[in-house]
């Protein structure tokens, strides 16, 4: 695994004035990984990705991309990266074909190689039909696709995508997610998002960043294992009994009162708690209106981690 490390980030720090927007970040990215950078708006996701792409210089720390230090050997390091900024970097007056060919030329491909690379990537991103249209006349979804296409046109080992699915309709969303999934083979992908569903749908690993610090990092697979090891049920009752009565239910380990008659019941795995709840609700007239099995462990982690600090402040 360690032989396939594509990106190594050590002690990455960036200040804007006095404020540390990115604070001592450490992580690695290996081939075959899709790393989801998750965090609330303003957490420092974009700043981190901009530094990875070499657009912004870090105040401290080291970034090594595919064996090349971004500061000592920027040309070689940048050659190994494809970057989609928050806003796709498209020249409005160029056609999609011209844009992609120019992007390829900038990354050092020859004229003929650029043309075939552009054609290939157009096919891959579903842009064949709009090749001769002007960037400026495309819808947001298509512009986003061109943005992704220009990032991967030179087939870089590392792909950095800043909020790749913003502004897409559900169908396009599916296409792009499939595309990102395909990129996994032979590449390392880092994408940022503030959508949990995004991470769950596409990523192999997740990192939660908050106020510039890494507060959580884990492979998604181990997260799912943990999830399977415990159960959780959210219920809503029109006429809730006292909390003590709920606590009496068999195999309930912990209860969280969510207010307005809603509760979160943590229970041992492999127990059909919903059946017990249903029986009690009918027998004791709790007037049940919601019964949701909660598998979204990531959501809870995210909310807990990102809200925790807010109460301290």
């Amino acid at each position, binding site marked *: 695994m360690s032989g396939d490390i594509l990106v190594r980030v050590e002690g990455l720090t960036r200040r804007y004035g006095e404020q540390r927007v990115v604070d001592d970040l450490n992580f690695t990215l290996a081939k075959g990984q899709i790393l989801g950078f998750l965090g609330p708006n303003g957490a420092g996701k974009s700043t981190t990705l901009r530094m990875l792409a070499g657009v912004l210089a870090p105040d401290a720390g080291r970034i090594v991309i595919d064996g090349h230090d971004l500061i000592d050997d920027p*040309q070689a390091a940048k050659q190994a990266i494809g970057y989609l900024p928050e806003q796709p970097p498209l*020249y409005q007056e160029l056609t999609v074909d011209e844009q992609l060919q120019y992007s390829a030329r900038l990354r050092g491909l020859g004229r003929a190689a650029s043309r075939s690379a552009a054609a290939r990537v157009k096919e891959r991103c579903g842009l064949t039909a709009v090749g001769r249209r002007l960037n400026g006349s495309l819808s947001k979804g298509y512009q986003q696709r061109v943005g992704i296409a220009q990032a991967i046109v030179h087939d870089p080992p590392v792909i950095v995508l800043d909020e790749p699915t913003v502004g897409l309709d559900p169908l396009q969303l599916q296409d792009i997610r499939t595309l990102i999934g395909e990129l996994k083979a032979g590449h390392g992908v880092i994408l940022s998002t503030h959508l949990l569903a995004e991470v769950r749908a596409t990523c192999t690993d997740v990192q939660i960043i908050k106020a510039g610090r890494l507060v959580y990092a884990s492979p998604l697979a181990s997260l799912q294992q943990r999830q399977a090891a415990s159960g959780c049920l959210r219920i809503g009752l029109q006429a809730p009994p006292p909390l003590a009565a709920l606590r009496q239910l068999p195999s309930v380990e912990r209860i969280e009162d969510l207010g307005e008659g809603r509760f979160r019941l943590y229970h041992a795995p492999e127990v059909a708690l919903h059946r017990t709840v249903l029986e009690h609700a009918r027998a004791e007239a709790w007037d049940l209106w919601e019964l949701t099995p909660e598998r979204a462990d990531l959501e809870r982690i995210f909310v807990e981690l990102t809200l925790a600090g807010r109460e301290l402040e």
Partner: protein
Amino acid sequence: MILVIAGRELRGLWLSPLAWTSLAVVQAWLAWIFLILLDEFRGLQGRLVGLEHAPGVTDLIAAPLFRVAAWCLLILTPFLTMRFSEERRNRTLDLLLSSPVSVTAIVLGQYLAILAFLLGLGALTALMPLSLATGTTLDFGKLLAGALGLSLLAASFAAAGLYFSTLTAQPIVAAVATLGLLLFLSVIDAADFGQNGAGGLFRYLSLFRHYDALLLGLFDSADVAYYLLFSLLFLGLAIRRLHDGRLRD
């Protein structure tokens, strides 16, 4: 890589109405001036015959035309050099900065594109007095010196404009600042500070004084050096600023 960037910039320029509009306006305006100069010359012609060392067609038509053309460029260039501000605003600068291209190549690419356009404009202007060669004899040495002066002036304008456009993401601010600097440097020698000290310095700094010498056909390497140094200074500043911008931004 410089040429790839310059090629795209030039293409972008031709795809925008700005290039065509400026070409049309400048050509129409200069053509009108040219006709007026020609008319005046015809009026003067009779009186010039008896004079010793009388000024010729080149002095009376080409030189004043080039002087007007220089002012046209002064006003026009700031609008062409706002490119960097636009790149930053449209976020296309991110594409350049994240590509394996040095900042120097980015600046030189942009610079070459603007220069190529301005030189084209200058060449079209030079065609007007050249057309007189069909009916009279021209002083090609003077004409060449004048064209060289105009090119050097354009190179200086473009460099200064490019630097200012790296300072701000607001294209108009960049244009106004460039225009301000160029105008200031054009009239800096107007105030009389005497022959020595500050007066001498101001005269040296003046953008047009060196140009006037070239228009008279006086080729002095000091004048040429002035424009080259001026361009290099601002290109250097632009490169530095873009480099540091990654630190500040």
